[in-house]
Each structure stands twice: as C-alpha cells, then as structure tokens.
C-alpha cells in the first residue's frame, strides 16, 4: 500500500502542487501516507485534521446535506493554509490534506487538489482489512514484555 501511494503521489502531483505537503489520514487520525519535507507535520496534525473534519461533517448534517454534496474544509490566509478533502478508498472514509505555503493561486491549487483526490479514489490500493481471523497477533503476551515497553518510556 505504501508503495502504491508513493508511486501515486510521485507521479500524479502536478507542478503547481509539488512544493506543498500532503497527508492521507484515516478517520481516527492515523497517518496512512505523508509526503512532506516539513518535520513539524506529524501525528498531532493528523489528530487535529480529523477532529476538525469530523466536527465540520457533523455540522453539515444541520444543512440537510444529501448524498451528492461533497464538502471540503479549508482554513487559510490566502497564500498559506490547510485544505482537507474527504476521499473514499475501499469504501472507507479517509482525508486528503494539503498543507500549503507561499501559494500564489489558491483557487487553481484547490482545483488540482480536488482532481488529485478524484484520481486517488480510482486507485486500487490494498488497504489492510481485517479478515475475521481468530488468531491473535500477540499470543500469551507477558506482563514483563509490557513492562519493558514502559521501562524505556518513563523518565522518572
């Protein structure tokens, strides 16, 4: 999946978009794919974007939203900001987020971002799906193994 997404973003991101950062997020805020040179763009951005998107989506229900309506979310000053587009992959909801700076033509950028989102929905990617296996990933997990995880974490 990572390779498919890398190939997609490497080949489909247009010249106008190439200096911006992209995040593909699950509904719960986990980052599925990140294309960015900015180290500050990390998990907290994922949590905030999905929080915003879900709150905006809940608000849209007050507008008698129907199936054909596609809402996007943006917060921007004109030349810099965030643009969030919901995308559907394998029948699951994801969010494509463009984080842009020094953008001279935000309208064109947004149109191209929407095209990118449409193309992304056509992509056949093998997103992990639970297959109902009854096998557990960590059989017989011991307390000591969990303690070891926390031993390195705690700075007491």
């Amino acid at each position, binding site marked *: *999946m*990572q*390779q498919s997404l890398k190939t997609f973003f490497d080949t489909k991101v247009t010249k106008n978009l190439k200096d911006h950062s992209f995040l593909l997020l*699950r*509904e*719960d*805020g*986990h980052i*599925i794919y990140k294309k960015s040179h900015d180290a500050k763009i*990390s*998990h*907290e951005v994922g*949590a*905030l974007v999905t*929080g915003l998107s*879900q*709150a905006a989506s*809940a608000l849209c229900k007050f507008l008698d939203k129907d199936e054909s309506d596609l809402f996007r979310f943006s917060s921007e000053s004109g030349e810099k900001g965030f643009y969030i587009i919901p995308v559907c992959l394998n029948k699951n909801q994801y969010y494509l987020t463009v984080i842009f700076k020094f953008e001279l033509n935000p309208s064109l950028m947004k149109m191209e971002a929407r095209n990118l989102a449409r193309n992304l929905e056509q992509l056949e990617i*093998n997103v*992990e*799906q*639970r*297959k*109902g*296996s*009854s*096998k*557990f*990933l*960590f059989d017989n*997990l011991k*307390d000591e*193994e*969990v*303690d*070891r*995880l*926390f031993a*390195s*974490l*705690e*700075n*007491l």
Partner: protein
Amino acid sequence: MSFINYQTKEINCKIVYYGPGLGGKTTNIQFIYQKTSPEFKGKMVALNAENERTLFFDFLPLDLGDIRGFKTRFHLYTVPGQVFYEASRKLILRGVDGIIFVADSQVERMEANLESLKSLEENLSELGYKVEDIPIVFQWNKRDLVNIVSIEELRRNLNKWSLPEFSSVAFKGQGVFDTLKAVTKLVLVSLKAGLN
C-alpha cells in the same frame, strides 16, 4: 480501530480517557507527557477553553518501542467531560481501541460518574460497539481526598463488568502509568492477526 502496517512493522492504536468533567483525564495525560522522555513522545495538543477546561480533546502521541518486532505507537486522547460536549465525545470515540474510564472518587461526583458511564455505553452502542468488546480499564481517581466513597461502592456502582481497576492520585502520578500499562496490554492482546 488499530492500524497494523505489516510492511513497516508498525502498530498504531487509539486510547481514549473518558469520564466526568474535572475528574482528572487531562491530568493523567499531562503527567504522562511530563514523565516521558522526549524521544518517545510527540507534541501534546490541548484544545481548551479560556478556563483551561477541555473544549474538544487533548492528544498525546507516544512511541512505546518494539514488541516482538513491531514498533508500537499509541495515540492518547481525552474527551471533554462537561455534559454539554456530548457530540464531541462521540466523535472522539470513533476508531477507539481501548478506554480508560477516569472516575472521580468524591461523594458528590457519583452522579456525574454514573451519567458519564451511561453516555459512554450509549456512544459506544451508536458506534456499533459493546462495552464487552472493547478493552476498558477503570481508574478511581482522587483517592487522596477526604470526602470519598469506598472502592467497593465505586466498583458496585460503576464496574458491573468486573473490569480491571486502579486507584490513583493523578496529579501526583500515582496509578497513572499502571492504568495505561493495563489498557495497553489489553489492547495488544486483543489485536487480531490475519490481515492482508
């Protein structure tokens, strides 16, 4: 729902701190943030009102290190405790893998604990979960105060499923990591293999 990436050998899970307002949910993750070495934590996000009460959520990403070859990353969230923010709580529970219910031990907060637990059950049900399906741990917080109910009473009123429970004084850190460890273990053992 947890996200397991077999290619990069990474597991991402979401833990939510739930409970009544002013019960100590934010204090729990603030203590974890303060006591965690910088290389294992990301930036803590707190969306507060002016009076420091949680408005939407607090968020803390933790990299717990490797277990059996998998790198584990936990995202800790708190919900806003005030009754007014029911819609926000429902949103934050989406995709949850484990819950810590932080109960306030004070006598006068028992009703708020019960109301919050009822809201948790209803929200989980609306999202298609049952309490029995999700790793949940109870934390009896504020055990250092004088006007508190007994643990037996908290258990009788709130923990009808006999789930794991811990006493705590969150602002001193007592019981904070024990509770997190317990829910972490339950989440990890509940992860199913067999993903494609």
